[in-house]
């Protein structure tokens, strides 16, 4: 299956960039020669990566990177240019971290295709850290037939109980996928899916013990995140849902709109709720598999 790479550069350069990309058989290059044309292409096509020069007729490569951050933040961007970093105007832009490749290097074309392939395969420009067992963790999550399991009512009851027990505004159970967290059940909120970069669970899942953020306004991992403030989140506590093989696939969380602390006993109880949620998932999956097994034998 080919992957579409948007190549943006001046008219006299863009073809050579596209040719380098097209040389890799799984890539399909699409060309644009202006910032405006690049914006249009991003709107119209499913692009998995953007390669851009710096000096364009109607702007700069950093404007392309900014457009990507606004419209498709998970799409990686590679700046392929002979302009040195020192000569690039970054002051006019808020942070738009991207890959930089000096096209004057002798191995620039090889480096370009290698880097593009790598940033696509590893989602290498995301603003969160991934656990070192990320691939196995995602495989473990995929092994549960979430859509087929009758877990909704159980999880709804559980989040009602958790919110009532702790007296928080919101309690939810979320499963953390590659790019987003799916909120499977939520008491007190109408949440469905949150980009992984925007969730506190992205950080919480990296800790063995319960993670508490008493006041997100005092924590620079979250204080500048408008999605969290828009959701009215002020304090957070999250406990891991861990598979029998040791992979963290989800979180059981408490959210409040006021600053809160959680003592050791409350943290222990939240962890127990997370273990209960995991047991529900395990049992439902076991039942589903045991029901499917005789049918397969009979075929």
């Amino acid at each position, binding site marked *: 299956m080919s992957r579409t790479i948007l190549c943006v550069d001046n008219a006299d350069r863009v073809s050579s960039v596209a040719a380098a990309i097209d040389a890799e058989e799984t890539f399909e290059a699409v060309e644009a020669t202006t910032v405006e044309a690049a914006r249009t292409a991003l709107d119209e096509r499913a692009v998995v990566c953007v390669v851009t020069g710096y000096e364009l007729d109607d702007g700069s490569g*950093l404007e392309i990177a900014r457009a990507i951050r606004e419209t498709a933040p998970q799409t990686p961007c590679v*700046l392929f240019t002979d302009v*040195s*970093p*020192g000569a*690039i105007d*970054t*002051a006019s*832009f808020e*942070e*738009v*971290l*991207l*890959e*930089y*490749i*000096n096209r004057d*290097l*002798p*191995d620039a074309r*090889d*480096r370009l295709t*290698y*880097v593009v392939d*790598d*940033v696509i395969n*590893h989602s*290498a*420009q*995301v*603003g*969160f*850290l*991934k*656990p*070192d067992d990320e691939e196995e963790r995602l495989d473990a999550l995929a092994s549960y037939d979430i859509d087929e399991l009758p877990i909704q009512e159980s999880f709804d009851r559980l989040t009602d109980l958790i919110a009532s027990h702790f007296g928080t505004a919101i309690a939810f159970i979320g499963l953390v996928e590659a790019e987003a967290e799916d909120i499977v059940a939520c008491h007190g909120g109408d949440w469905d899916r949150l980009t992984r*970069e925007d969730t506190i669970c992205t*950080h919480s899942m*990296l*800790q*063995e013990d319960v*993670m508490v*953020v008493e006041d997100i306004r*005092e*924590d*620079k*991992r979250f*204080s*500048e*995140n408008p999605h969290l403030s828009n959701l009215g989140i002020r304090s957070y506590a999250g406990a891991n849902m861990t598979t029998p093989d040791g992979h963290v696939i989800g979180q059981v969380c408490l959210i409040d709109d006021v600053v809160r602390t959680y003592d050791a006993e409350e943290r222990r109880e939240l962890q127990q709720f997370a273990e209960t949620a995991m047991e529900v998932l395990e049992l439902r999956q076991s039942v589903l598999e045991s029901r499917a097994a005789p049918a397969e034998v009979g075929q």
Partner: protein
Amino acid sequence: MSLSTAEPFSAGDIAPDGIDSGTSILLVGDDSDALESVFYRLVAAEEDERSVVLATDDGGRSVRRALDRQVRGARSRSSVLAATGATGEGVEPISDLADLTKLGMSYSMLLSESQQETARFRSGIFLCSSICEAVDDVRSVYRLLNSNFLSELRRGEGIGVCALDTSSDIGASVQSVVAGMKTSFGVCIEVEATGRREATLTVSGLAGVDETLTVSI
């Protein structure tokens, strides 16, 4: 460019069997002098290698001297991106530590230039906690680590050391940040100064190394 089955990188008494190419090392502790000593021991380039260091608190010349003290001649095999001090041979300036867009591009350029001379590199950030202090949003630092630091280790023949001073006020729970970073780095070395010239290292993730070892600093 391709991943290779490279020879391990030497690391003296910290890792007698060496450190495999591609290894990312998180170095944490609350004594910056002790951290610095262990950092330069890991990052100083041997003869067929180059060092690329992002220095937030020291000048480039000071960094190059520190590398040379660990491995004779390492100074001439180094490129430093420095936030303080004068520029000069092998030293590029950082004008704004919070401008991670430029920082990331400059770091990538130095690393790719060093790979034109030799494939093997030792890269390092000293101190990542200072970058966290400088920025408003720590997610930017994670993006920098993903885009420029960890990815280069995956693609090339090198090791990378990221040092974090746990006594810094990074605007977030240091313990929580370190706990998160530990899971993304292959190796974690906790440095505790136990005397004027001695430190205890608690090492996790490094094959063939005792969990705790005492080193001179």
